[in-house]
């Protein structure tokens, strides 16, 4: 079961890397978050811990329902082009993603060593998701894509944390959720501002400050 979920996370991340338009990116992000929600829920059912139920519930509300909805609404409201503005075309992005997968596999195998295979897979997927998030942030031009890249990185970290002996201490987990929530709100606010002042959300063209 765990392996299947990890595989779905992997697939949804690949979908994100090759996405050309913002709505597709958001949809894949929703899939990925849903997988994380499932993984946490299964863990909660197995271990019967109230903490984990709360965490999975928050994950569902925040990352599966609220944030994607907010991002969809932002696209509609600012009426910007739905194109992501690719620096690297989808085919080449796919190659990059394959490279990342291999890299994170080697890295996690090195970190954990022999023995626990499922742990190595979990760690590899988590690192891959983080790397894919960085990739999205660097090689996509719109401000919205950068927000999603950041959220993808955050998802990767969440996966990593849940691998590490079932997550972080409860109140830290809650604080981090709160933090993600606030940061998305604030970034969304600044996307509106950028759109208002520059009439586009192409971050590549924000180049007034230099030197």
């Amino acid at each position, binding site marked *: 079961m765990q392996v299947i979920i990890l595989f779905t996370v992997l697939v949804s991340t690949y979908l994100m890397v090759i996405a050309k338009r913002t709505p597709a990116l958001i949809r894949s992000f929703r899939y990925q978050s849903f997988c994380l929600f499932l993984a946490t829920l299964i863990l909660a059912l197995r271990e019967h811990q109230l903490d984990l139920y709360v965490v999975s519930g928050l994950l569902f509300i925040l990352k599966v329902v609220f944030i994607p909805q907010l991002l969809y609404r932002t696209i509609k409201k600012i009426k910007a082009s739905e194109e992501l503005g690719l620096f690297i075309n989808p085919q080449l992005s796919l190659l990059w993603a394959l490279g990342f997968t291999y890299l994170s596999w080697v890295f996690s195998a090195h*970190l954990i060593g022999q023995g626990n295979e499922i742990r190595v897979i979990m760690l590899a997927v988590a690192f891959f998701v*983080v790397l894919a998030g*960085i990739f999205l*942030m660097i090689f996509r031009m719109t*401000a919205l894509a*950068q927000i999603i890249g*950041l959220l993808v*990185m*955050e998802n990767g*970290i969440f996966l*990593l*944390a849940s691998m*590490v*002996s*079932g997550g*972080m*201490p409860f*109140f*830290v987990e809650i*604080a*981090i959720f*709160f*933090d993600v929530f*606030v*940061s998305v709100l*604030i*970034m969304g606010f*600044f996307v509106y*501002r*950028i759109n208002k*002042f*520059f009439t586009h959300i192409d*971050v590549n063209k*924000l180049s*007034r*400050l230099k*030197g």
Partner: protein
Amino acid sequence: MQIFFILGIPILLAVTCLLIRRQRFLGILNCVGYLVVLFLSVILLKQIALSGSTRSFLGFICLDALSVFFIFVIAVVVFASALYSVGYIKKDIEKGIISQKKASTYYLLFNLFCCSMFFVPAMNNLGMLWVAIEMTTLISAFLVGFYNKKESVEAAWKYIIICSVGIIFALLGTILFSYAFSISGLSKSLNWSDMVGVAQILDKNILKIAFIFILVGYGTKAGLAPMHTWLPDAHSQAVAPISALLSGVLLKTAIYAILRFGIIIIKSVGFAYFAHLMILLGVISLVISSGFILVQKDLKRLLAYSSIEHIGIIAIGFGLGTPLACAGALLHVFNHAVTKSLMFFGAGNIVSFYRKHNMNAIRGVSKALPFTGMMMFLGVFALTGFPPFSIFISEMMIIIAAFTKSSYLIAAILLLFLAIIFGAFINHFGKMLFGSIPKGMTKTGEPLTGKFAFLFLGLLICITGVAFVFIKGEWIWVVQKLFLI
């Protein structure tokens, strides 16, 4: 007990900003509030740092000499900044740059920002430390984009994105630390005090990798080159009192986080690993910033690059790692915070008078704004490490430590680039401070509270260096105890 007041007063002040809308009253209330915080932090410093004890409350607040020292530094700069804000915001309202309503928003954000910064050194739990640092970014982003111009929105966006990515790496590092802790067979915990006790038995390979993530992550926030790219933009676009806070203490809170993890690394992996990384990043920061300082045209960006330089010096100081060097680096944290705040206040007055950032258009400051001109004159020499000011003492300690440790190359690099930066600063400021006022501008008065802020900081700059000679012994003893060297 004092710590709860230190954390609580900013929150209370923030709530007051929601209830009361008269900005003049709010400004003065802020000054009083932060004066109290400053007194409390001095009491804490006396109680905890000098006795060398640690005190913890409820498990997740833990105070030792390092954290009370950083709380004290934050309190000093925040108090000065609150004083300066009163006059600065009033002037902005008179000029019609911001409205009355926006002024009270400013005070609200100011208090929240200060509150989040006070939380950073108080946290024992490394996860909560991360949350507190991320909170400082999120709140100050509004203060960077406060003036709602194209440039400031751009700066705020770069700031929030680059720092958030950086800080995610720091979270990754934190999780790897907790992973190392959990596979060593101990119970789940992210508390620093638990980790440092068992540092020797943690898995060294994982800690090494984790520390790289920590250094990249918090290093981004601290403005260590090459992750510094957000810093000049944010510092040059923020409101002047906030620039002082960003440069004076926000960067230092990130340094604090690096030190917390660094202490675990020193105990577990050994000192050399920590030292090499810190010195490498410190030297890169020093070299890169000196280049930008030489050719800089924008006044506030010049000061921002100078912050990168000083963060580099601090990193080198901790990297050298002898008691003298660490003592110097910690002292430099304070000295730089005080001096750079004074410079940013001065720059704020200059920019609001000339309405320009470009240094080529700014001439005759000492005639147009006599008081600011005089304090800036003092500040430039203090900032570039001229005796007898405080920065001279701390830089000297670091350089002497480098020589006595026979790290001649590092000492040579430090001296060379400090000399270059000294020349560049004297050149830039000589042109600005002297000369004749541009036509059509006349001499103006300056607000009284702003003058108080200048005098407060100026006094600290002048006396710290001299006073330090008397407490040098205790200081080094405390530092030795902290870093176990």
